[in-house]
């Protein structure tokens, strides 16, 4: 009887019921879409942070090169003064493996110092490097002109420049570091004896670009390394991972690291651990994941702001309007049923039974609206995933020292470059690969989101039912029946 009465009543008021259900559905669907987009943005941020940090890392310790120390650098035997300048027609081919511009090295011994701090769960050292290859022929037009810093920029020379990022990683898995949580899709991870072996794991995207597979060789600093694994890495990660010992050897940085990755024993003590690390490694820059997140700028940051501000208020407004409309329509419906409820009271129905009937109708409307809202929300999140552009995130850089491996080619280098990797672009790419990440925004609907949607639907139904019930409970049966005299 209870359900039959609800069903028949809602069918009788089908137009009104549809308006209420659609209103709730739009509100709930909007909340779901915004929530899913928010989740997507959060995931994108995590992806950015993971690509820059590595999964499980709470902070990184780096050292910035002192001002002016970077200076315009150059390949050995090339540039510097006019007397040593190569003659026209000279074939140039060089390959270097250097730390990312602007960063200085730390003693590897600092890694164990940091690891021994109370509050540190694990610490591992790494070398963040850029391998740059340069080859070309010096033309007559550029030969002998100017100084090393500028003379190679003239027109007529043809240079091929390419670079890729290389991370030297500790091969023992400690749960922290850029490669530690990566999934090696093909081949295998480093073995315990690989610390100085000429082996590499390459990211799947780089493997695709360079047509590398397990067993191929990749040239790093002019030496051939055997590819033993291909790992799925997030966008912005390094292209090639090699054992730390190998990296130190190839880069001539024995006993050094550029980055210490640290994980804290708990999220609560990240700040205190950061302060302790700062004291332990004077002059180093300690960046926590929270700081890094706050430094994220670009369209990803804008999307986060949009999702958290506009989205939140839009959802609240839509829900509030839906709830109010549903409540008012329910009250109006009850007002039109005064005689009906008066009759039911006259034949012995208690007020609470009538209230339960009206609440049931509201709840049914809420559930119908909730189901429709979930469908709308899923559709909305799909649309967001399909239409959302890739977002870029840039983490604030401290490249104050300037210069780098290709300082000699800065700025106008592209004018003389003929390859797909112009000189100026080479530097820019090195910069980008370290600090800017492109991520595709998706809007995944989580089970909690659906649960929240169901709760909102129930709440909406109860709000509507409560307002209607309040009206019904105030009806006096005699007054209800008097209306029909």
């Amino acid at each position, binding site marked *: 009887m209870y359900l039959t009465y609800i069903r028949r009543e809602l069918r*009788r008021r089908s137009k009104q019921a549809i308006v209420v259900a659609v209103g709730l559905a739009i509100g709930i669907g909007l909340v779901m879409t915004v929530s899913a987009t928010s989740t997507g943005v959060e995931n994108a941020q995590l992806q950015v942070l993971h690509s820059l940090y590595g999964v499980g890392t709470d902070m990184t310790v780096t050292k910035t090169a002192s001002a002016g120390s970077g200076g315009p650098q150059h390949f050995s035997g090339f540039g510097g003064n006019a007397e040593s300048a190569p003659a026209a027609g000279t074939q140039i081919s060089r390959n270097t493996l250097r730390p990312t511009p602007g960063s200085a090295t730390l003693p590897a011994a600092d890694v164990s110092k940091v690891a021994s701090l109370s509050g540190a769960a694990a610490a591992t050292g790494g070398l963040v490097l850029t391998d740059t290859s340069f080859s070309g022929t010096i033309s007559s037009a550029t030969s002998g002109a100017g100084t090393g810093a500028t003379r190679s920029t003239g027109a007529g020379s043809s240079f091929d420049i390419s670079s890729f990022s290389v991370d030297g990683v500790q091969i023992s898995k400690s749960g922290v570091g850029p490669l530690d949580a990566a999934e090696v899709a093909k081949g295998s991870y480093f073995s315990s004896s690989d610390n100085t072996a000429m082996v590499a794991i390459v990211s799947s995207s780089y493997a695709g670009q360079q047509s590398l597979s397990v067993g191929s060789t990749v040239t790093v600093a002019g030496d051939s390394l055997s590819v033993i694994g291909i790992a799925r890495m997030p966008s912005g990660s390094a292209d090639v991972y090699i054992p730390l010992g190998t990296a130190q050897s190839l880069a001539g940085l024995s006993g050094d690291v550029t980055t210490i990755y640290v994980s804290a024993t708990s999220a609560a003590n990240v700040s205190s651990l950061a302060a302790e690390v700062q004291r332990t490694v004077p002059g180093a820059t300690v960046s926590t994941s929270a700081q890094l997140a706050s430094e994220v700028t670009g369209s990803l940051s804008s999307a986060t702001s949009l999702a958290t501000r506009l989205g939140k208020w839009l959802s609240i407004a839509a829900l509030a309007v839906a709830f109010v409309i549903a409540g008012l329509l329910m009250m109006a419906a009850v007002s039109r049923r005064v*005689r009906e409820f008066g009759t039911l009271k006259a034949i*012995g*129905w208690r007020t609470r039974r009538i209230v339960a009937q009206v609440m049931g109708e509201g709840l049914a409307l809420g559930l119908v609206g909730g189901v429709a809202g979930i469908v709308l929300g899923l559709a909305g999140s799909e649309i967001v995933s399909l239409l959302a552009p890739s977002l870029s995130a840039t983490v604030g850089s401290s490249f104050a020292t300037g210069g780098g491996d290709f300082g000699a080619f800065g700025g106008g280098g592209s004018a003389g470059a003929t390859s797909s990797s112009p000189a100026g672009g080479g530097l820019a790419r090195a910069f980008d690969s370290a600090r800017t990440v492109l991520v595709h925004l998706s809007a995944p609907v989580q089970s909690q989101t659906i649960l929240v949607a169901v709760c909102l639907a129930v709440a909406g139904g109860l709000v509507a039912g409560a307002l209607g019930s309040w009206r019904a409970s105030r009806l006096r049966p*005699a007054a209800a029946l008097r209306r029909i005299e």
Partner: protein
Amino acid sequence: MYELTGIRKYFHRGAETVWALDGVDLDIADGEFLAIQGPTGQGKSTLLVLLGGLDRPTEGRIVFDGRDLGRLAELQLAELRAADFGFVFQSFNLIPTLTAQENVETALVPFHLSPDERRRRAHQALVDLGLEDRVGHLPSELSGGQQQRVAIARALVKDPKVLLADEPTGNLDEDTRDEIVGALEGLWRNRGLTLVLVTHDSWVARRAERIAVIKGGRVNYGDASWPSTGREPDPELVA
């Protein structure tokens, strides 16, 4: 069964206070068929509402089987309405979305019967009123007379002590009126219930054992003297 003493009831109509009942004294015996007759707007329905425990008097006492209805809590009144009072209304007051049988079942909801028992009793009540072929019909699919018989079935399905009928034939043509009044009279005789019927129709009122004429908020009996106000009854309203 009923003892009404000094019943007064007023309503507010804007700033004006309207006395619908102005000192009614009335006794109704167990098993009696009483017709309350009078012109429109003279307090007939208000008196019926008070007899059914749907409202409380402003002054006076309504004692039903030893209980003062004016002093009972709303919950107790609801229980009385569910168990002891059956109502029949002029406009039938059927739930438009429910079938004839479901409408009758609504009267059994307060008793928390099993669905099967509820359906069985509702069906039997409809059969008793000759509506066995209309059990699945909505009110809109029934004639006025059939709707009123459904309403009577709803009132009687719980075997009440009192049947309170407010202008039960007011919306019916003459033939149907006779049919409904005949049905009510038959049920009263066969079941031994107390029947209080409000009507302005003298033909209907004459079927009762006793007629109480209500005018100006006071009651007169056809063969009794008017209260001390000295106002004369309308001869046309006294059977």
